[in-house]
């Protein structure tokens, strides 16, 4: 089909053509960026926690009536929980991967260093890798004799006595790679303060931090041989078979209440709920973005239908003349399809520039990465398709115009 006559017709409808082109351009730009943002959120939501998620439940209790020995209390609680039928392992932890509230420490490789290299999540508690199901890829787990009660460690910190301080740690592969790129981390040391020096004895495949908002630093965590006393910020983690989780959770709450009726259970949930809650905002935003894309494409398609119908009605006589002069129905159909394709192409070309501009703005204000190039053709194909679908109805109506129209005066 010759496109020159189409272009000359469009030139006579400059404003309407430009409006359609601008509408398509803006839609294309927003759809490209919205699809990209959805992808970004979905990828964030797929973040690995590094643990055996479907086998874990969490119970958090608060404010036990003044217990003379919170360490003994914690031991008793753990013993009670271990008795529950179906429980495979139990641990007390100060935080959960993707759990929200976090405990972090600044990491230095040299104690005299002014600025720490990074901040890493610090897990405290016995049997954590085993209970979590975090995979050890090198070295060993922390040994029971390496554990130190937190209050002893705090006293040691105040007095500068290194004997009461933890000396070893298990770190994640991601943290090890960041601190010692390409080297074997086992046996290497890092510092949390001037006096706390930790030697790496084990490396975990992965263990996400509690506040894993940034994908790049999400796996920067370590486990320290510190024992915490029972308290409102500690959680009991129970490992069980996935189908037993509900029963185990109920039994665990009952057992903890029985051990001390004065305590308040502030949280009881499966780990699946933990993940669900952590990404609730991202899920909602992704849903909103999908809604925006659907609404935008619908509005644009309806706009194309409206304008194409108008053009067809306006050109009824011309179409009749062309039919009378020998143009087939196919010619008329293709004329309108090509016209729409041309408009969509102009719009898409403009939309790409705009999409790039919007992406630059988002990179500046929302810390989004650069829009990968393959999103551009995705947006283009989507708009070409929408355009062709929208114009099909009016174009078929145009093709149905009988040649006899040409002979009628009005």
């Amino acid at each position, binding site marked *: 089909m010759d496109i020159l006559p189409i272009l000359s017709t469009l030139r006579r409808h400059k404003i309407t053509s430009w409006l359609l082109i601008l509408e398509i351009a803006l839609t294309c730009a927003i759809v490209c960026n919205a699809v990209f943002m959805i992808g970004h959120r979905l990828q964030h939501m797929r973040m690995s926690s590094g643990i055996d998620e479907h086998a874990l439940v969490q119970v958090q209790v608060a404010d036990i009536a003044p217990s003379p020995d919170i360490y003994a209390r914690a031991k008793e609680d753990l013993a009670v929980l271990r008795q529950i039928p179906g429980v495979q392992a139990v641990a007390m932890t100060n935080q959960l991967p993707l759990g929200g509230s976090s405990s972090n420490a600044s990491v230095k490789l040299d104690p005299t260093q002014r600025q720490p290299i990074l901040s890493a999540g610090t897990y405290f508690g016995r049997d954590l890798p085993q209970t979590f199901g975090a995979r050890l890829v090198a070295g060993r787990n922390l040994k029971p004799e390496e554990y130190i009660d937190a209050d002893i460690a705090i006293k040691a910190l105040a007095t500068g006595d290194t004997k009461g301080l933890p000396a070893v740690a298990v770190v994640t592969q991601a943290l090890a790679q960041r601190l010692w790129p390409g080297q074997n981390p086992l046996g290497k040391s890092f510092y949390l303060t001037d006096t706390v020096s930790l030697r790496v004895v084990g490396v975990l495949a992965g263990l996400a931090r509690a506040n894993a908002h940034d994908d790049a630093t999400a796996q920067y965590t370590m486990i320290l041989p510190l024992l915490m006393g029972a308290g409102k910020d500690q959680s009991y983690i129970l490992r069980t078979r996935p189908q037993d989780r509900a029963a185990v959770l109920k039994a665990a709450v009952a057992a903890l209440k029985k051990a001390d009726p004065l305590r308040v259970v502030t949280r009881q949930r499966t780990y699946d709920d933990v993940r669900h809650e952590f990404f*609730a905002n991202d899920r909602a*935003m992704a849903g909103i973005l999908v809604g925006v894309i659907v609404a935008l494409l619908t509005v644009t398609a309806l706009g194309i239908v409206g304008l194409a119908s108008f053009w067809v009605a306006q050109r009824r006589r011309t179409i009749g003349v062309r039919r009378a002069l020998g143009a087939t129905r196919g010619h008329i159909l293709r004329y309108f399809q090509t016209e729409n394709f041309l408009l969509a192409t102009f719009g898409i070309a403009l939309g790409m520039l705009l999409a790039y501009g919007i992406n630059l703005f988002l990179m500046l204000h929302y810390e989004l990465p650069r829009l990968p190039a393959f999103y551009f053709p995705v947006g283009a194909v989507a708009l070409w398709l929408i355009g062709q679908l929208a114009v099909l109805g009016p174009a078929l109506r145009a093709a149905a115009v009988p040649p006899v129209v040409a002979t009628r005066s009005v």
Partner: protein
Amino acid sequence: MFGYYLDLALRSLKRNKALTVLMVLAIAVGIGASMTTLTVMHLLSGDPLPGRSGTLFYPQVDPDPDPSPNHQPYDMMDYRSAQELWSAHRADREAMVTSSQLRLTASHLNLPPLMAQMLSTTSDFFPMFDVPFRYGGGWTAEDDRSRARVAVISSDLNDKLFNGADSVGRTLRLKDSDVRIVGVLAPWRPSPQFYDVAGGRFSNGDTAGFYQRPEDVFVPFQSSLEINAGGFQPFTCWSMPGDPAHLQNSPCVWVALWVQLDSAAKVAGYRRFVADYAAQQKALGRFVHADNTQLRSLMGWLDFNQVVPSDVRLQTWLALAFLLICLFNTVGLLLAKFLRRAGEIGVRRALGASRAAVFAQCLVEAGLIGLLGGASGLLLTLFGLWLVRSQPVEYADLVHLDTTMFLATFALAVVASLLAGVLPALRASRMPPGLQLKTL
């Protein structure tokens, strides 16, 4: 003439129902989406204390002993700095605040114990922030000094424990201490919960937590330190705390200080006072960064913490872009519609109608579409706000359509559709009448 144009517009709209519905829907959807997000934006970015916020300030000092230059002082204060600045009483009013969690029981009420949020503060808090009381009132400065075991409770807690009855004089058990209720707040829901705002710049835009409800229990600062000893959390520490149970002498920041300064001279005076205090602390060897002090206004502090969640801002941009696309759509359709009536317009022009008259007639039609779109957009806005309310976010219960936004919805719809109508109407009125008549 307006009535006649209105009649013409109605006839024209009825003639092509599908096109009319399409235009009205496009405007309605655009208005609905943008007004939903703008309403949320309006509620979240508003002034929590209109008329008052200009006199409230948030002093900051920098107790970090690390000599490397810090860009910003900590978001909160260490206990000693806050206590010393507070007890100097250099401002018109001033209140220390810190929030903690503790067990609350009302044993005689036969209710299970619950974990309550407690705000530790000083007596000026209530008059300074215009906190409304339903029963009783705040405590006195004397209560602050004498570490009185008194408390003010929120209206939510009063409803839960006492079914909304006057509970002044009743006793609550906070952890292991009894406190006497001296006041019950009327429902109070500042947006954001400004006096607890801190650390916004570290939250990656996820700041919905700043919009949670105020605490359940308000207790004099010194009394609360005794009642909930060991229950306070530091905001951050510059070195390991020796005794995490008692933060008073710890190297940690965990107390916020708010001051009310009623005139510009007093603001300048207080700024000088904070700077002098920091210099004096440097002389004593406690501070290193004496010049790193701040005195931000309430709104300045909220801006600094970027309290509006970044997702909400992003949604607003999206919705406005969406409205723009809907408008392009409407302009195109109106243009098509008016130009199709070229013959009719030609006849009117030939019979003596001026360009202005044709223009006015077209604008009336565009405005009518805008009104219809605005009305449907309002329904969509209400639906959108209902959707926001059903989301699990802290500010969900704040979201409602107030009169301002209700009127703004209609204004936006009509202005938008008039704007959309200007270009098509202009084109229609410029058509030479002769040309159109010839084709008839």
